[in-house]
Every structure is written in C-alpha cells, then in structure tokens.
C-alpha cells in the first residue's frame, strides 16, 4: 500500500468511525530544570546549561522543582482533573545517547492529575468534550543532531552531536481518553483540542506553549472501526505533529490511509509514523512488534509528591477564567460573530484588543485597528501582532483622538504609521507631523467655497438634486487641506452652502 492509494475522506467516513487519542507534551516555562538548578533558556550555547544532575553523572541526585509541581497541579485543575493526594515519579528505562541516565524520570501508574476533561469549541460554535486520562510530570531529553547524512536523519550520518541543555527541562504530558463520536469532524476536534489546550496553558502562565519552538508537541494516535461497532481498531501513532494545521492534516491523512488499508482487506500495523509538513502525509517509523518494555519502577531517588488539599484549593482559587469561557464572554461583549472571533483568536489579537479597551477605547475601534491596519502591517513584516512596536495604550489614544474629532481615519492611520516608525507616542506624532483635523470653521468654509468655485459643473449637479456628487467636492476639500479636515463636516458644509438637504 503506497501513500498514493488513499480512499477519499468522504468514502472513509461512510464506512468507518475514527477513534483518536492525543498525547501532548508541554515544556514548562520554569526558570530552572525539573530536577536541578540549571537554567532553561532557549538558544543558549550547546551544553552551557548543564550540571552533574542533568548530565546524569555518577553520584548526582535529583531534587524536584516545586514550581513545576505547582504548574502541573494548575494544569490538572484547569483540565478538571482529580489531583493525586500522593504520587511518585517512576523511571522509564531505555537506552538512547540523548538520555543522560538512560532512564527518563517520569510518572507511570501514579500521575499527579487524572480523570478530567476539556471542552473545546469548533469553528461553528459547537462544543465537544474531550476526556482527559491523565497529566503527568517528566523531564525532557537532550537533543541529537546527526551530521553527515543527507536528511539530518541518523541513517547515513557520520557522527552525532549531543546538546544536553534541554535534558531535564520539565515536561507535562497530557493524555486524552479515546476520543469517540467526533465522526467526520475528528480532525477538526483534534485541532481544536490542541488549540484550546495551548490557550489554556498560556492563560495559566505555565508555558508560552509555542509549538514552532517545540514547547508544545503532539502525538496523534488514530484508529478506525467499522461504523456501528464497538471494538477499537489497531492504532497508528504519528509522532511530533507540531502545528495546529498539521494535527488536523495528520488525522485526516491517517483516516484516509487506514480506510484504504482496511477496505482492501489489509490490516493496520501498530507502529509509530512520521508526519511530513510538505505534503501532509505520514510514513512508517519503527514498528512496535512488541510493546517496548520500559521496565518502569518507582524512582527511589525522589520522595513522593503529596500536594496538600489546602494547597490544591489555594491553587484552584488562582486559576484564571478558562480561555473558551473568556472568549465567549468577550465575543458577546464585543458583539462579533463566531467566525470573526476565530479570526481574532488566530491573529493573536484577543489580549491586545482587551488591553486596548481597558485603556479606554471602544470595542469596535480597538478591534478595527488591530484586525485591520495593524494585522496588515504584522503580516507584511512577518511578525506577531504582539511584537509590533505599538502598545495597546497607544492604539487606545489614537482611538480617543478620533472619537474627539481631532483625527479622522486617514490621519489616524498616519499616526499609527508614525508610532510604528518609532516617531514617538501618538500625541508626539500628531505634533511632529502636524496632523490635526482642520476644525476651524472659517478655514474650512474658505476651502469649501474654493472647491465649489473650481468645480461649478459638479456644484450645479448637486444643486439639481444629485447629492451623491458631493463626494467629488469632499475629495477636493480633503485634498486642499491635505486630509486634515473632518470629511463628514466638509460634506455638511458643502450641502449647506449649496442649499441642499443631506
């Protein structure tokens, strides 16, 4: 079976029901590693953030990072999980050069959080509940770079470089229960789940959860079962699917691939698969002929973690409003559609708009600037909206200047441009560029008179009832005042002077 012989998505769904299981790893944003005091900064010189403990040197011992436990409990609570009263770390034993101790300190049958759920909202507003099996703490491995091979893969490489800066960075692994009943929307549910989880993690402040930086990584387990049957099919596990779009594509591809195999009388092999961004396909990784034996046992170098109920309740009290609830509240407050809200979310504009409103702007204006002019600029410059050199307070100030009539839209855009160009705060840009609506009625009246005199034919048309022609005269006045007039007032003046009702 080659990848070209997929069955169509519709045909696959006509016969089979997809069952998914999603495993998401989140790198916590703690200052230090899970079991030692090493820094966790990204992009540091290789092996500069290491110590005897995270290098697994003989004689070193781990000590649990309290902030990581706190983050794990917060994540567990936000996912509506039960929090273990007592749990232990466990050793997951396997050999790999990027694992300093040749065991990963993880959790096995005693996760810190279990039995929860996350409600996710699809683009049309439908809410789907994803059940959470568990969330547990563990440490990341180091990073191998294979040199000399054509593809950066180990095959054909002459040697490998190891960077242990990542070894020991705290990870939380969040595992769903089998996701059933999503039907044809399964890929969409998977994407929405990962998106919601990412928002949640960010809202909790425990990680920046940037997928492109590897701070959040997703493994997609998928199987099909014939419609109307109970027994789960054999699953494939697509590893390291590292963007929201890829999660959706990987699910879709696997549904079509499984369906093709099953429909032609074949059987699905339980295996791990690699996802390819270029064409959205997956290819076979290693085959799990027998389940790998990790020889788990409780980590004897660490004492059990026993979060007191008082502490857990205290942390529950600090949880922020859930992103989905907050989004729905804001959507109603702002009076926008599900679709527009989704665009705002995708643009990363929610918090910026909220901050702009908090700084005094009205919702519509705040949204207009961030989703219009500023989104365009961010796109052009290829940067995040949030990293544009303009603060929500400054956008709010521009909105205020427009509202009080000091600026019109065109001038406001120039002010924004000035702020982005580093010319200072909005008021400074207004001052330096001399951008003020001409509201001096005398000066404006003169400009209107001149425009009427210079365009007698148009003026006649307007007198004759063609009010729409007034636009041309407004344009002339705006041109004469270099855009610094209030267009609405100009129009009023023109109609007034020509004796026409607007």
């Amino acid at each position, binding site marked *: 079976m080659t990848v070209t012989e997929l069955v169509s998505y519709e045909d696959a769904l006509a016969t089979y029901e997809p069952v998914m299981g999603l495993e998401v790893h989140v790198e916590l944003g703690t200052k230090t590693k899970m079991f030692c005091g090493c820094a966790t900064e990204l992009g540091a010189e290789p092996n500069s953030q290491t110590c005897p403990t995270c290098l697994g040197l*003989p004689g070193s011992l781990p*000590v649990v990072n309290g902030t990581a436990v706190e983050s794990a409990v917060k994540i567990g609570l936000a996912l509506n999980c039960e929090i273990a009263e007592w749990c232990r770390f466990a050793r997951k034993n396997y050999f790999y050069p990027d694992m300093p101790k040749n065991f990963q300190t993880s959790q096995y049958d005693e996760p810190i959080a279990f039995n929860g759920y996350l409600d996710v909202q699809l683009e049309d507003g439908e809410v789907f509940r994803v059940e959470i099996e568990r969330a547990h703490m563990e440490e990341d491995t180091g990073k191998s770079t294979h040199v000399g091979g054509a593809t950066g893969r180990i095959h054909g490489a002459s040697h490998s470089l190891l960077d242990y800066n990542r070894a020991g960075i705290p990870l939380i692994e969040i595992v769903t229960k089998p996701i059933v009943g999503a039907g044809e929307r399964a890929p969409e549910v998977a994407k929405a789940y990962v998106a919601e989880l990412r928002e949640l993690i960010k809202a909790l402040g425990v990680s920046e959860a940037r997928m492109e930086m590897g701070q959040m990584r997703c493994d997609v387990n998928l199987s099909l079962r014939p419609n109307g049957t109970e027994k789960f099919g054999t699953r494939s596990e697509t590893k390291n699917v590292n963007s929201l779009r890829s999660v959706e594509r990987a699910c879709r591809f696997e549904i079509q691939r499984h369906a093709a195999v099953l429909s032609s009388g074949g059987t699905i092999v339980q295996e791990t698969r690699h996802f390819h961004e270029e064409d959205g396909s997956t290819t076979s990784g290693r085959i799990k002929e027998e389940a790998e034996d990790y*020889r788990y046992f409780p980590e*004897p170098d*660490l*004492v059990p973690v026993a979060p007191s109920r008082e502490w857990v309740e205290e942390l529950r009290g600090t949880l922020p409003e859930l992103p989905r609830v907050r989004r729905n509240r804001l959507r109603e407050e702002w009076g926008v559609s599900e679709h527009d809200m989704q665009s705002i979310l995708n643009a990363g504009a929610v918090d910026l708009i909220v901050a702009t409103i908090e700084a005094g702007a009205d919702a519509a204006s705040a949204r207009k600037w961030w989703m219009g002019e500023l989104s365009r600029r961010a796109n052009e410059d290829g940067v995040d909206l949030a990293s544009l050199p303009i603060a929500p307070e400054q956008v709010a100030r521009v909105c205020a200047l427009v509202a009080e009539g000091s600026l019109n839209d065109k001038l406001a855009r120039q002010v924004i441009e000035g702020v982005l160009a580093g010319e200072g705060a909005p008021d400074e840009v207004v001052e330096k560029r001399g951008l003020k609506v001409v509201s001096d009625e005398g000066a404006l009246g003169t400009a209107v008179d001149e425009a009427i005199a210079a365009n007698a034919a148009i003026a006649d048309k307007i007198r004759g009832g063609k009010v729409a022609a007034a636009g041309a005269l407004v344009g002339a006045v705006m041109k004469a005042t270099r855009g610094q007039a209030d267009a609405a007032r100009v129009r009023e003046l023109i109609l007034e002077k020509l004796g026409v009702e607007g």
Partner: protein
Amino acid sequence: MVAFSSSLDQGGPCARTVLDAALLHEVIAGHDPLDSTSIDAPVPPVVEAARNGDVKGMRVGVVKQFRGEGYQAGVLQRFDESVELLKELGAEVVEVDCPSFDLALAAYYLIAPSECSSNLARFDAMRYGLRVGDDGTKSAEEVTALTREAGFGPEVKRRVMLGTYALSSGYYDAYYGSAQKVRTLITRDFEKAFEQVDVLVSPTTPTTAFAIGERADDPMAMYLADLCTIPTNLAGNAAMSLPCGLAPEDGLPVGLQIIAPAMKDDRLYKVGAAVEAAFTERWGHPLLEEAPSL
C-alpha cells in the same frame, strides 16, 4: 557516592572506636538539600551517647530468626557471650519474633539488582569513563555493548541481568512488586519489635569472613553473608557493627550488630560504647590490637 541500589544505598562512618565513629557520624549526618531522600531533622546526640556508654535498664531484643541453620558455631558462641555481657551490664534481654525476616534475603536480591540495572545504565561510554571499540565503524549501541562487556565484572553483570529480568513487563508484580511488599512486612516486624525493646542485637554475619573469591562461583553462599544486615537495610533503621571477639574455630573476628529505630542512632552509640568498654576491660586491650596476628 555512586548509586548502586538507590533505596538501599546508605553512607555511614567506619572507625577504630565507637567514639571516633560518633565524631565522624556527627560531621557527615544531616539533611542534604541536594538529596531529597535525606531526612530533614536534627542529628541525634551521638557523640554525647558515645561518651556515656550505658545499658542499665535498657530493654534489648534478640531476634529469634537470627540463628539456626547456616550460622557458624563460633559466631553464635561470641554472640551469646555478648548477650550475657549486656545482662551483666544491667540490660534486660528478651526474645522477639520477626517472622518476615526469613523473606528478607529474597526481597533484597530482587530490589538491589533491579535498581542496580537502572543505575548502572548510565555507564554507556557516551559521556565519560571507559569506551571500548569506538573505531569509527560501530554504532553507538555497539560501542555501549562492548564497553559494558569489558567494564563490568561478572557479579555486576549478573545483577544487571537479574534486575532487568525482574523489572520486565509481566514479571514486575511477581518480583519487584512482591519484594516491596515484603519490605513493608519487614518494616512492620521492626515496628512491633521496637514497641517491646529499645534496641535489637544479632551477629553481624552468620559466618566469619570468607576468603576473597572463595564464593565467586556460588553466589547464593555469598549472598547469605548478608542475612543479618539486610532486614535493617530494607527497613531503613539505624544499625552498628562492632567486634565481639574471635571465632574459636578460625580465629577470625565476629561482629555484634546493634539495631535501633530510624533517628535513634544515639542508642547505638550508648550500647556500643558500653559493650566496647566492657570487652576492652575483659580482653585487656581493644580487639584491634590482635589484628597483626590475624
């Protein structure tokens, strides 16, 4: 300290006299912030205890399970003399029953190799230490295998293999899991015993020292030497061994083991110092002075 079996590994002082041991103990004991399994509590007054050896009015338990088959006659003879001495010094001696101790050796030789198999996995030739066969043609796995083959001795390999097997999927519950349950039972036996007595005493080993390499081909015989010290190791109590004479049949030293509850280390020194003083008086000199003739 390089980890062998993390839940059993324990540092401790080794010295010429009970007082020296106490002085060293006081320096090395206490909470280590880099070891979360170390107890965060004040160190018991061990030096004071070692300076004031006394067993008057103490209740001393003799564990029923620590004698019988496999125990050398001369070892038991010296041990019995020690018990008589304790009585003469004013201790009240009672027999205590710790039935789970019979399972201790089996539990230990599952737990220790299991943890050993995991702890020694880091010696893989990747980052430090010996590296064998790295001639540019071999994979990392091959170099690791060759290095471990060359660097680990037969007893280490035996333990790594035993432990790997005991932790394997499908065997965990039967082996490692059961061994941990036995560990709990042994701890309970100790708890019950310490409700009746202040300290327990036993021979330190069932026989005197065997010659180097003598039991290399008979690991079971070698493991049996640990019979008396293993229950304490599993339960995490405080224990001390001190010389109580030479076995008549081979002239080799016999150890007296004193066991106290965790964090009651001072009791060991109080009893140890009293016994040491009495023996020194009886022998006319410390036992160590006989060392050159051994």
